[in-house]
């Protein structure tokens, strides 16, 4: 008989489980958010975007009653993760973090989403590019660098991303603005580029500041300039390009975004949530430790920023034959 009782209990349990969502839906609608939020990182676990994303999620979680699950949807130079978010249900339960790759890949990759396919809600901060040289190159300043590049018949070898990547764009802009020609050597990601300049395979690189800060302090590598509006907090002694008379501001950046058509109240809720999280001094301190530059912005300002970035990037891509998917 024991079997019978268990069987009956099982049926009752099954009925309860099946009916429970129905019961929940009958009541007044629960306030948003009542379910876990999925936070999509469009690069693999362990990278800079992943670390930034997990940190933001960690601190945003503290302001919520529901968990935030971070997942990595990587591939196609960041485009796969963006597609994942763009095509998810517009209910506010899917949020993502992305960077400059979005703007480049919409022109390069016919299958990537464009900036209009998603809704960027808040800015985390820039990750400005810089120009680094090996100390044994004898180059001591940006002026030296440009002079050497113009006079030496063998071009300086610069380590950077594949075409369309942030450090490749930085190198291309550097060539345009200073009228020099470099040999651009492509690497898959920042770590191999760091290894390349440290080993001497290339003489210079256009990596973000924090990638080579330690070698800069140890004296093996010299950072000649930062491509940002203001100096970088990790290298306060290094001048910006602007300070050295070259109007070059570029690099990666990070922002939070949603799929289009999110209900207005949820949109407002998430925008405030992430803006407050990113403005939190405790978060900013943790981010500084991880060498992230933090400059929070709300949706309006962020959209303007992305538009400006798009405008500065387009001619570079056009010149490199990288505008293949859609024209401006």
């Amino acid at each position: 008989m024991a079997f019978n009782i268990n069987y009956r209990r099982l049926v009752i349990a099954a009925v309860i489980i099946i009916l429970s969502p129905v019961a929940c839906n009958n009541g007044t609608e629960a306030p948003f958010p009542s379910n876990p939020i999925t936070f999509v990182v469009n690069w693999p676990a362990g990278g800079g975007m992943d670390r930034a994303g997990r940190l933001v999620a960690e601190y945003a979680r503290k302001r919520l009653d529901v968990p935030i699950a971070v997942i990595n949807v990587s591939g196609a130079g960041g485009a796969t993760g963006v597609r994942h978010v763009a095509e998810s249900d517009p209910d506010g339960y899917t949020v993502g973090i992305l960077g400059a790759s979005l703007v480049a890949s919409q022109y390069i990759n016919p299958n990537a989403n464009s900036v209009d396919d998603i809704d960027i809600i808040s800015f985390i901060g820039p990750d400005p590019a810089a120009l680094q040289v090996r100390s044994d190159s004898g180059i001591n300043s940006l002026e030296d660098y440009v002079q050497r590049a113009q006079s030496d018949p063998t071009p300086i070898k610069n380590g950077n991303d594949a075409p369309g990547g942030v450090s490749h764009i930085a190198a291309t802009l550097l060539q345009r603005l200073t009228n020099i020609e470099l040999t651009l050597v492509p690497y898959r990601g920042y770590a191999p580029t760091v290894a390349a300049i440290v080993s001497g395979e290339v003489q210079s690189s256009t990596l973000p500041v924090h990638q080579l800060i330690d070698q800069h302090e140890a004296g093996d590598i010299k950072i000649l300039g930062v491509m940002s509006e203001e100096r970088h907090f990790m290298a306060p002694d290094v001048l910006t390009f602007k300070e050295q008379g070259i109007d070059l501001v570029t690099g990666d950046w990070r922002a939070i975004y949603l799929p289009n058509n999110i209900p207005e109240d949820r949109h407002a809720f998430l925008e405030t949530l992430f803006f407050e999280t990113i403005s939190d001094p405790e978060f900013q301190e943790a981010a500084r430790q991880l060498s992230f530059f933090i400059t929070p912005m709300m949706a309006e300002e962020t959209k303007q920023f992305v538009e400006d970035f798009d405008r500065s990037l387009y001619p570079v891509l056009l010149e490199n034959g990288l505008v293949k998917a859609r024209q401006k």
Partner: protein
Amino acid sequence: MITEFFSIASAVATDPYLLGLSALGTILGILMGCLPGISSTMALAILLPVTYAMSPLAAMVFLMAVFSASVFGGSISAILINIPGTPGAIVTQLEGYAMTKDGRASEALTYSLFSSTIGGIVGLIILMLVAPLVAKAAMQFRSPEFAMTTVFGLTMLAYSTPGSTFRGILSGVIGLLCGMVGFDLVTDVPRFDFGTSALQSGIGLVPLTVGLFGLAEVFRGIEGGVKGARKTPKLGTLVPSFEKVRRLWKTILRGSALGAIIGAIPAAGSAIAVAVSYAQEQRFSKRGNKFGTGVPEGLAGPEAANNACVGGALVPLMTLGIPGDTMTAVLMGALLIHGLRPGPMLFAERPDFVASVYVALFLALLLTVVFGFLLVRHFVRLMRTPDHILLVIIAMLCVVGSFAIRNNITDVYIMIAFGVIGYVMNRLDIPVAPLAFGLILGPILEENLRRSLIISDGSWLVFIERPIALTMLVLSVSALVFPLLQRAKILASNLKR
């Protein structure tokens, strides 16, 4: 460094909190590593936030345990169900699973555990004693060296396939082609994507190996299910006899040295170390022609190499501040969050902290042995599950594992496609391992060859001017030419007669 190592080791060994953390990290690492799709990197990334509130020492103790144990964990599923749990375990199943099918699962796991530990310790010793030296040597290893070493690897591959060389090369070439799918590094043009976004990210190593080995095995199991071909594993003989282990000493040391060195080369990674080690053991072993049927050398060498990579990968991180792979990148993130920036400065100014990283790794290795031995018995017992249940579970793990790596459904389709391909190839007697090697080596060769030529401004002399590259080139050429000369000699002597 040595005195600091011992003073910190004694402090850690008497601290129940740190010991507990290390034990917890080890168990979590083994469990996460053996789940297909959760790589060591992912295990570290998931557990990193847990360490935010800990002291730097505690965080390192915990994360090193996760790191080191997950590498061993990845071998468990490779050996028992033919699915590599982590990319570093992709050759483990070639011999390991063959042993399992033979009813020697516990023996295989013990070999794996034993050689993993030795490999890990050798990696650690190299890290402790000669890290700056190794880092310097590894830095000599640039694009031309990478290109020529890969050529050497591919040459070895042509020989190291069991059975017909032609079939081996055929399979390897398919692998090379698969490696070309996706965005091209130099021009950023998507190749072989057939106009879909699905193939733009390329064919991942994990979906490919999970399909080729895991799912194909399920298909074979369904086919042979009625006959019940698989032997029930014996639980006894957990510890192979001393004589058996003694015979593997050289293999394990060779694998360890190889793993530590390749691990120290930034961007090389454990998948390459194990592939090279496997090919090498096949050449050295007297039973080389029997590889693929459960030869311990083919298991012990790569396993040692895989774990030696842990110490190796820490070399450029600790001495130069360069994370050589994604795992060490996560560890670097963990250090940064505690205000410690690994690199030449930390190495010079905080030798005590550097030593504590070594202690953490050493403790992790010891605890992996302890928990490994405790868990092996239970894992093997799982294999007594009847086939009709086990095959369903394996099929599910294949799907989950290939999905979890990038959270991308395309990877599941790729995995299923390679499951079918693997099954068909098996029926046609075409070895599948070269396909996986081709996928690993192809992109490395292409990328580095093209980059070398950009750097040398199109001159092929770059491969002859550099000593390491030249050595590799000479080795590859002689590996191809000598057998021909030998054959010609035999032919000539036959003609004389």
